[in-house]
């Protein structure tokens, strides 16, 4: 995760604190949930091919594996 600092209007901050307490989650968790919803909503407005491109571009580092050789060589070995 990345640490970041944001400014919230006082009233919004208070309401979020109240919501977090009533849902028994941390304020950070609640804000992450909200950010996730914004991303989902934005993606929904995109045509399917743009959504695919976006998902490809956002492929998570945690799923990447270190390759035994360069990708070009690995594929060339499959074809030769």
């Amino acid at each position, binding site marked *: 995760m990345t640490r970041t600092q944001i400014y919230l209007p006082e009233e919004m901050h208070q309401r979020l604190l109240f919501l977090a307490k009533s849902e028994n989650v941390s304020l950070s968790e609640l804000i992450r949930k909200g950010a996730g919803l914004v991303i989902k909503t934005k993606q929904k407005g995109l045509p*399917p*091919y*743009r*959504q*695919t*491109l*976006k*998902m*490809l*571009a956002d*492929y998570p580092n945690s*799923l*990447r*594996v*270190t*390759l*035994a*050789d*360069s*990708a*070009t060589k*690995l*594929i*060339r070995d*499959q*074809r*030769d």
Partner: protein
Amino acid sequence: MNKIVIDSCVYVSHFGIDKLTPKSKAFFKRISQTDTQIILPALVEAEVLVVLHQNGATRLDKISQLFSQMIFSPLNKELIRGLTSFIESNQSSLKTSDLIIALTAKLNDAALITWDKQLLGSNICETASPENYRGP
């Protein structure tokens, strides 16, 4: 809309980690801002899944899910007919797999994006490396 066929090595360097990964990631980031349609040859999907599996990838389902949303180009009779007519009237030293991928791009009026020098040097279809591709 731009149409492209992306070669297996570009996907593998994007889904894996090698020296070209930063450039492959930058390429996908760049095209995600554009109207680009990806055509996925059956052979490319198979190669990517096999090579990533051989290199220890465990979440192939995530990659299959991404692939399932692209325009799939099957290895079928129609493609073989196109291949036959191409090799009858053209000289090419490309291996069968390379030829099928380049021909898929040609038949779909798409550019082929690859890191592979052999394919970049072929003249069957428009080719570009991920860092040089700027759209039509």
